């Protein structure tokens, strides 16, 4: 038999977990918004700061709302695997396409025509 007091105490903890998660998420959102609207740093740095805050918020929500780590361990494993795939897809795409952009930018339109004829089918 379960003891009712224990159950209640467990529930209290979960209420607090949701409230803490909510407050932290709102704070992180407002912080990122404030930084961008007021141009606190130069653009390059601001991009990394905003991405950093987004990742922090991902962790906050994953812990307090999605309860990763509680329940099945497979949940955590599939989550990490999904993150791995996502990083490969996103970072890989940006890397390759920027590199392509950089290589093509050096050419004039005529040179580009010649280049594309030479490398047809690649």
């Amino acid at each position, binding site marked *: 038999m379960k003891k009712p007091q224990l159950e209640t105490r467990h529930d209290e903890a979960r209420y607090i977990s949701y409230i803490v998660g909510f407050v932290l*998420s709102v704070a992180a*959102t407002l912080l990122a918004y404030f930084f961008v609207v007021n141009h606190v740093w130069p653009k390059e740095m601001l991009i990394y700061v905003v991405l950093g805050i*987004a990742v922090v918020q991902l962790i906050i929500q994953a812990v307090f709302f999605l309860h990763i780590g509680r329940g099945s361990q497979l949940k955590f494993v599939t989550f990490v*695997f999904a993150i791995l795939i996502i990083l490969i897809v996103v970072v890989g795409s*940006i890397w390759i396409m920027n590199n392509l952009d950089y290589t093509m930018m050096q050419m004039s339109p005529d040179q580009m025509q010649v280049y594309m004829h030479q490398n047809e089918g690649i």
Partner: protein
Amino acid sequence: MKNVIEEAAVQQKKTLGFWIYLMTDLVLFASLFATFAVLRGQTFGGPSGHDLFNMPFVLLETMILLTSSFTAGLAILGSNRGYKKQTIFWLFVTFALGAAFLTLELTEFSHLVSEGDGWQRSAFLSSFFTLVGTHGLHIAIGLLWLAVMIIRLIRFKFKQTDLNRLALFALFWHFLDVVWIFIFSIVYLIGGMA
């Protein structure tokens, strides 16, 4: 007693199955994010994100969705404790906030299209509409699911199967909130920089 244990085991498997679906959905969104990141600057002489996005409006959308995710969590806690009225109340709040979010998003879309900045305008806007529209579609389906569930919960007086579905719905809703955080950060905050 044995039946209860078996049911809990089945529910755990269903939760894991649903979780794996969510992760594949996350990969779908990741490919759309990658597309957006690559096409971000390709405006074809048209307006860029900086010209189009209304920041306070987007912040309002974000806050509404965050609160909606929070109230969905409160509904789950209520249902765990067996507080029926509380659960229904928070589910209604979640629905109202979700519907408000969707309305705001559609307002933004129709405004962009009526100004001539629809998805045909440039590669940037195509990727923008695809990414944000896919999220909006998920929200719309989530609202439909939520509406059906509220009716079922009231009609069938909190049957255990409906409570199990409610837990899966909350997972879905929190997941959409996480995706929106990245849309807010990457599309609007970073994409809207001058």
